[in-house]
């Protein structure tokens, strides 16, 4: 597995520039969090990296090869995106949903994927979603559905997993579950880049951060050294101080209004 190097990505919508000349490195097999205030361009950047949003300029290198230059299906075999608030009305079962992730590996008309069953079962197991294999996805809770969607992404057998606000709308326990899941995924060697709204989660669990403000990179690098109180004050407009979580021993970012 290799690191991902994002270089000079710019996304425009009409007159507005949503992502402005963004570049950063996502270390291989690590959890990189994209953080920033609302409207900073985190979602847009992720979608541009996935090749879903049209980038006016920029490249996404993996092993020296530009992923954006690949044909769609080839790119979908290397990169998987779990979009924000993904939802469907169809009464698909958990395995149906995960099987969708095999689509880039199948032939044009479907089929030609002999190991599908095994890969699907494996993805469900890795995300702890085996119990939902035969359940209707529209009946699952937010956290349960998120597991299934991440399993779908894993079924694509990607080297890079992009997550857009994976902890949104989830209650506390589910949020922590997702974070644990991300850590398991990176432990298996997949590079994870996730847009995280909640700074404390990013601070506690991410290996590296990219701080976006108004479409530009304000700072990027390993988490604790990059998220200095000064930077946080500038970008987020709050006071901050690093400490330790007494329950877990992990770094904890304490915040207060100015």
């Amino acid at each position, binding site marked *: 597995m290799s690191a991902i190097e994002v270089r000079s990505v710019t996304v425009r919508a009409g007159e507005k520039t949503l992502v402005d000349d963004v570049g950063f490195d996502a270390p291989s097999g690590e959890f990189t969090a994209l953080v920033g205030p609302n409207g900073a361009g985190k979602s847009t950047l992720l*979608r541009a990296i*996935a*090749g*879903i949003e049209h980038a006016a300029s920029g490249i996404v290198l993996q092993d020296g090869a530009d992923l954006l230059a690949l044909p*769609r*299906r*080839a*790119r*979908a*075999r290397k990169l*998987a*995106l779990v*979009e924000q608030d*993904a*939802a*469907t*009305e*169809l*009464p*698909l*079962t958990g395995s*149906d*949903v995960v099987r*969708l*992730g095999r*689509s*880039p590996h*199948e032939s*044009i*008309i*479907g089929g030609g994927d002999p190991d599908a069953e095994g890969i699907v079962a494996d993805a469900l197991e890795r995300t702890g979603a085996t119990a939902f294999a035969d359940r209707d996805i529209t009946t699952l809770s937010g956290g349960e559905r998120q597991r299934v969607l991440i399993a779908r992404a894993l079924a*694509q057998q990607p080297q890079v997993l992009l997550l857009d606000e994976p902890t949104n709308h989830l209650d506390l326990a589910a949020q922590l579950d997702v974070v644990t899941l991300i850590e398991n995924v990176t432990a298996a060697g997949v590079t994870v880049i996730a847009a995280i709204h909640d700074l404390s989660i990013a601070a506690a669990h991410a290996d590296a951060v990219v701080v976006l403000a108004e479409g530009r990179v304000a700072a990027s690098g390993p988490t604790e050294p990059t998220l200095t109180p000064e930077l946080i004050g500038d970008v987020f407009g709050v006071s901050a101080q690093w400490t330790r979580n007494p329950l877990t021993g992990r770094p904890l970012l304490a915040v207060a209004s100015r």
Partner: protein
Amino acid sequence: MIARRWIVTGVLVLALVLSILAAVTIGSAQIPLGDVVASILGHLGAPVATPDPLRDAIVWELRLPRVITAALVGAGLAISGAIMQSIIRNQLADPYLLGLSSGASLGAVSVLLLGVAFVLPVAAFAGAVLALIATLALARAGGPVTPSRTVLAGVAVSSLAGALTSFVIFWTAQGDSYRDVLSWLLGSLAGARWPAVTIAGIALLVVGVPLLFSGRLLDGFAFGDTSAAGLGINVQSTRWMLLTATALLTGAMVSVSGAIGFIGLVVPHAVRLVVGPGNRILLPLAALAGGIFLVWADTLARTAFDPRELPVGIITALVGAPVFAALLLRRRRVA
């Protein structure tokens, strides 16, 4: 799950074949089974004694092409409906959403009332295609093509075509020519002879069968455009291609039989209830089920009030509308 799929497929194929054979033996004229078989075998080249010319004509020139056309049109409309529902991401979509049936009606009614009925299928098809072009052009104008824009554009084009159709009828319909028009607008297989079989058959073979293999692409849209793009699907061109193919298939069917309603809407639903929403299984099964349904609906249309005939669109509406309402109620309870 897989075994169930094959069992259901086998049952439906058998049911379709049996339905066609049974329907050919049913009709206003009481023709003995032996004569029916002899007529068909005779035309296929077997050395059998053919029944008298009129009975032979009834079986071979009236009933058989009509029943086969019913199967083909039912299959085509069901495929179109299933695809529309997936592309538009709305289970209440039907193949006529893009103004297709209104455009075809305008073309058909115009030539019916001008008295040049022999070009009817051509005019109807041309009308459908023009309506589709208008809808897609309208949907594109001023923004990216999204499902809801396309549907709204289709509504606009349908309304316009419908108004023009009404105008044409009102302006030129004399005497009882409105009956022909009404029969076409409601959908009828009464005029289906061997040329209709050819048109519907070619459309189903050339457009419909390839569409049966679009299940993987359609399934990719389950979570929306972003999801589909993330799975490596070219969203815009896939959507255009599928919509255009569906329109061609629907246009061909409508040109042969008028705008028969409720098949594209209800048959995919009914099949989904049995085998789930996955399009790979749904498309072929819906095609089979649609064919069976229309064969029987048409048989009913031509025999229920023997010797009078109803346009088959009335039967499909009478059966389809309550089924549709039941499905709607069911959804509400589940949601």
